[in-house]
């Protein structure tokens, strides 16, 4: 039975030759006892080191997942070293302003990253009793978010988008404009790109550069032409830095991860190669738990100043919100901002669908003393009215607009104004919460007062038609 010291002695050993290579997986037999999830170095014939981790370990064989891909590896020529430790990265505040690959190695030509603090990229589960319930309103300057799907510091609020929709623009706008009112704390941004194209990475870099915040941003890029397997580690590396910044350096961190769908596809790839029993659409049964390991790393902790707010972006295959990736994400995150292609087609930016979008943490971050006393009821009434608009539009598409009652016509007017004045705004337009709320009342005042059941008489007195 190997104890700790023998283990670390053995871990210095190098094995020459492997038994099998299948996709990103390498199988090695006749090793010393190797620990589950240990870090592995695979050295190819040219002497290049590729990192991997142990996916399964048994007395017969060890299965290694190689992050940098297996292309060019040979059975007899590959040398394997097991480190005896899980995968860690060195983290520091100095990483802000720099660009890394998915494993946290600099790719911006700058000096290698040095730090005394090495953290396991897998992180650990936060004790629920240590969490601080998030309540601080973040003003993004975007009405449909601030007014109706409020973002809270420490929240995980994904953008459910589709190919070709302006999710990058919205995420960049949020990163640029996000502020906590009455403070001048800046958000540090940790950006993780998984399988997106170079121009997406460039778009974000440029946008951060233009607003002069680039030195406050750390980018982890694992782009479309990088080995797909590297995507699995990219968000973990990024979140590990985010945790360090938030809970060791007292910073407020905004994590943008794009595109989660690519991440999930890589996970599916590994699972298929390993012959695991799939659940829906070929995705592994543990996709939910795996995503939760990422999403749940955001939040706030009692007694700590910093926070992690995360904005994962995912594209819904076929715009289908019931596809496993958006579906399982929605089951974990604290709401979602859903894009609608049809609104985008009508030139509305941001094309945020009114009804399926939701912020679950909104309730404790809005209202008197936080935004304004009328905010909760106003938002609720806007949702109710807009939902009726949708019904009327459906009805009108069947029976024709002429057949509608006068009241229904008024609702259609409201719906139009709501979309074009309240939801729609410029990509550089930064509205204060007061502007957003006032605008909400303005469009709501199109409706007759006895339609507004969710608003108190005092509020009507004070805000309706003003």
């Amino acid at each position, binding site marked *: 039975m190997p104890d700790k010291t023998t283990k670390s002695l053995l871990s210095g050993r190098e094995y020459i030759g492997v038994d099998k290579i299948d996709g990103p997986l390498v199988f090695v037999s006749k090793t010393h006892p190797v620990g589950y999830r240990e870090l592995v170095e695979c050295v190819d014939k040219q002497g290049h080191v590729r990192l991997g981790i142990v996916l399964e370990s048994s007395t017969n064989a060890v299965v290694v997942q190689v992050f940098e891909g297996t292309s060019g590896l040979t059975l007899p020529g590959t040398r394997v070293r097991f480190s005896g430790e899980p995968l860690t990265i060195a983290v520091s505040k100095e990483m802000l302003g720099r660009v890394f690959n998915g494993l946290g190695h600099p790719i911006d030509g700058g000096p290698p990253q040095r730090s005394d603090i090495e953290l396991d990229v897998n992180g650990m589960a936060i004790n629920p009793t240590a969490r601080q319930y998030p309540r601080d309103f973040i003003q993004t300057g975007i009405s449909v978010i601030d007014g109706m799907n409020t973002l809270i510091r420490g929240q995980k609020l994904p953008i459910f988008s589709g190919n070709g929709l302006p999710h990058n623009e919205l995420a960049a706008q949020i990163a640029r404009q996000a502020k906590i009112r009455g403070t001048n704390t800046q958000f540090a941004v940790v950006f993780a790109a998984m399988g997106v194209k170079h121009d997406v990475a460039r778009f974000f870099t440029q946008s951060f550069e233009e607003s002069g915040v680039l030195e406050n941003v750390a980018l982890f890029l694992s782009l479309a032409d990088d080995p797909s397997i590297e995507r699995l580690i990219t968000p973990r590396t990024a979140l590990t830095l985010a945790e360090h910044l938030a809970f060791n350096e007292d910073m407020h961190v905004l994590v943008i991860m794009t595109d989660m769908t690519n991440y999930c596809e890589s996970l599916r790839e590994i699972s298929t190669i390993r012959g695991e029993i799939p*659940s829906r659409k070929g995705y592994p*049964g543990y996709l939910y738990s795996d995503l939760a390991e990422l999403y749940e790393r955001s939040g706030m902790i009692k007694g700590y100043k910093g926070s992690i707010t995360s904005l994962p972006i995912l594209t819904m295959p076929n715009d289908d919100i019931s596809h496993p990736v958006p579906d399982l994400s929605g089951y974990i995150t604290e709401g979602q901002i859903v894009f609608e292609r049809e609104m985008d087609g009508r030139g509305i930016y941001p094309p945020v669908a009114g009804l399926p979008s939701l912020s679950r943490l909104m309730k404790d971050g809005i209202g008197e003393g936080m935004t304004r006393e009328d905010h909760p009821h106003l938002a609720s009434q806007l949702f109710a009215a807009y939902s009726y608009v949708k019904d009327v539009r459906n009805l009108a598409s069947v029976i024709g607009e002429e057949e509608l009652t006068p009241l229904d016509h008024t609702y259609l007017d409201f719906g139009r104004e709501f979309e074009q004045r309240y939801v729609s705004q410029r990509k550089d337009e930064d509205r204060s919460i007061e502007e957003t709320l006032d605008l909400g009342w303005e469009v709501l005042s199109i409706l007759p007062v006895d339609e507004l*059941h969710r608003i108190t008489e005092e509020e009507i007195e004070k805000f309706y038609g003003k």
Partner: protein
Amino acid sequence: MNDRIIGQVKRVNGPVIEVMGITDAEMFELVRVGEENLIGELIKLETDAAVVQVYEDTTGIAPFDPVYGAGMQLSAELGPGMVGTIYDGIQRPLEAIREMSEIYIKRGITVPSLDREKKWHFVPSVKEGDQVSGGMFLGTVRETENLLHKILVPPGDKGVLESVTGEGDYTVEDVIAVLKTDDLKEKNLYLMHRWPIRVQRPTRSRLALDIPLITGQRVIDTLFPVAKGGTVAIPGGFGTGKTMTQQAVAKWCDADIIVYIGCGERGNEITDVLTEFPKLIDPRTGRSLMERTILIANTSNMPVSAREAGIYAGITMAEYFRDQGYDVAVMADSTSRWAEALRELSGRMEEMPAEEGFPAYLPTKIAEFYERAGSMETLNGDNGSVTIIGAVSPPGGDFSEPVTQHTKRFIRCFWALDRHLANARHYPAISWLESYSEYLSDVVSWWESADGGASPEWLCDRTEIMELLHKEVRLQQVVKLVGPDALPDTQRFILEVCTLFKNAFLQQNAYDKIDAFSIVQKQVKMLHIIVTYYKRGAEAIKSGATLVKLRKMKVYQDIIRMKFSIPNDDLAGLDKIEARLERSMDQLEALHA
């Protein structure tokens, strides 16, 4: 306790570990793995391919690592000190873990479930020489202001008490009595005992379920009531309101003890309960809600296998309080995550899957879980109940998937959450068309009886409104074809009343101070007012009144706002609205007479 080595690790695959060289070990034995002493359970026994399911992250575990046996099954500790505590899936107190490992849950931490230092004031109710058997009371401990914790003889034990301590302060490990069992062995009894979580605790008999669990949620109590001891499923896609509904029930229902199991859901939701419950006052006892609540939190990022165990730990604690003669309500959020944990573990053990990768024994497991609910005559001869309310999270919100379908076979009350209602912010988004309660006929007499709902017309009113809601569906179809103008006023009035009922009665805002819960009398009166508005309005239309007139009545605005304008302690306000309604209708009738 950990020195008995029962085997060595052969293979590690996530939380599933194959063990070789098994010597002596017991099925479902609690085990420890490796130098870090990770907690696990032996779930398959075979000399060279036994399987251990590990309740902690297995990073670093390697072949040949030792596996130690604890000599007992995975059990819950039952005794004073559980109420107000938050546990993980294997009943480790999370607050105590935080003291040892701060923000994160480190591995290999051992903490007893019940505080070993704390002294409880025990008042015996038995004496030396008494003949006792499992489930009988030895005495009591006042655990909180309102909770008298009955100390039980562990089920299965039987004999004569050789000695009993006097009234005084004891820890859960102090001997409070000595039992001479029938086979003449001596056994020490304590304030606590252990019970294997996968085994149902015995009772004398099952009783009829005819008393509703009042939840304060109108759509539930009035339309789809659950009986104390009943079983409910709440299925719904993400964001449709499962957690909110369960939390609302946990806050306001008239159970004595709440066991809230967060099974694979969000960390912040648990934090929310932890910050909110202590501040909320139980309307019936005037004490903090936390004083009747036990929380189990195994959030989505915590180890999957502990999710599977958490459900059983929770139900075992619930049964223990039932055995003391209490009504217990268990919330499990979400049973789908538990089923998925079963699926994942089964997959890693390479078992043959049935539907959608779930193991073939999924229905059996679901059935066994819901079977543990019921209203029982306890071994002590009292009545106690366990009500189970399980959330189901169907992929894509599609109820035809295996977990929803199998759950439906074993529950009797179904609160179906509707995506369209949720999107329209109609909360609680419980569909009145798809939901049902098989307890309805059993609880009618309670609603009608004087010491229950005291409403002889309850069933008539409820039936009336349900009929209208079903008529509305057909009428809406007509409207969709030919427009609303084609309907006669009598039918358009039905549409109006349904809209009114949805806005004024069914929708209930969990965040509103007044609306958050409605006492029985408020529900009865609100229902009656709306039914009266319909009945008298329909008469008025027959005699020539117009829809606009009915809608423009001033009392209409009162009705629509009564849910949040009239608090539970001012029901006279509702009587006034009713009187005003009758008067307005009289006037209208007079106009057309």
